[in-house]
């Protein structure tokens, strides 16, 4: 029993080391905050550890891990939105939330060109305006470089549905960005 546990923990360590960066970045693309992304990545691997025995093996293990990452990130965003709505209702009712969230975009690379940073910021904002499934598809495809087949497995849809989601997402992004630059250029 001890041997099995030892083996499990050894292979689990390898598994974590292999996927931690991609899981972290996948979560970061959705939550846009380093600390939250790290916490979520930890949650993802805790779930993987707890449910590894129930993994059916229909898909690749990595796909399953990224599926958990996406689901956890989306749940986190939904909870955050709910909290925001509740705080708004409270503020309307006269209860003020003293603790405001600090929203600073801290770049990982300070040498990144300012213009480029601004473009990425605008792009992120435009992606946030997309419907949830389009947002997931374009984030996984463009930021994390997943293939359409992998996205199909992560999202649990068909290849044609992913193709269509990506196509619509790109068109919508283009439209939103055009409208934005029309106003601000």
């Amino acid at each position: 029993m001890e041997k099995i546990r030892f083996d499990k923990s050894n292979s689990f360590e390898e598994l974590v080391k292999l996927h931690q960066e991609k899981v972290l970045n996948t979560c970061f693309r959705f939550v846009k905050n380093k600390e939250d992304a790290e916490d979520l990545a930890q949650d993802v691997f805790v779930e993987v550890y707890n449910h590894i025995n129930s993994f059916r093996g229909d898909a690749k293990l990595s796909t399953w891990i990224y599926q958990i990452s996406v689901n956890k990130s989306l749940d986190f965003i939904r909870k955050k939105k709910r909290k925001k709505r509740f705080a708004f209702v409270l503020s309307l009712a006269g209860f003020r939330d003293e603790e405001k969230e600090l929203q600073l975009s801290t770049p990982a690379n300070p040498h990144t060109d300012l213009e480029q940073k601004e473009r990425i910021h605008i792009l992120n904002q435009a992606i946030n305006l997309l419907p949830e499934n389009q947002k997931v598809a374009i984030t996984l495809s463009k930021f994390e470089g997943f293939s359409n087949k992998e996205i199909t497995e992560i999202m649990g849809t068909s290849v044609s549905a992913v193709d269509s989601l990506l196509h619509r997402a790109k068109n919508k992004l283009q439209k939103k960005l055009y409208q934005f630059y029309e106003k601000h250029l």
Partner: protein
Amino acid sequence: MIRKEKIEQEVQKTLQSFKQAERLKSNPFFYTRLKNRIENLHSKKQKIRGWEFAGRVLKPALLLLIIALNIFSATLFFKYKTQDYINREQLLDFLGHELTLDYNQYNPNFLINE
């Protein structure tokens, strides 16, 4: 026309910036933190399991005990209730036995006879 081209150029540049988006490097203590978290969760789970086991055994035992007590008190109740109300003779007979009265006292008509 020039403005439109400029906007389109900017849109394309923005769309191409997917690849330049910052990538996070994972914390070197990520696995250590994760391991600690899993161990903590595991020990908490074991404690909860202990309580669950106690609950699983104690709850039915307590329930059975309550049911048994109820059945016992119900049988006692009905037993004496039927004995009480069959007729006056039987009641006196029962009381006589319970209180171990002598024959004269046990005879329900001893006072009348005198």
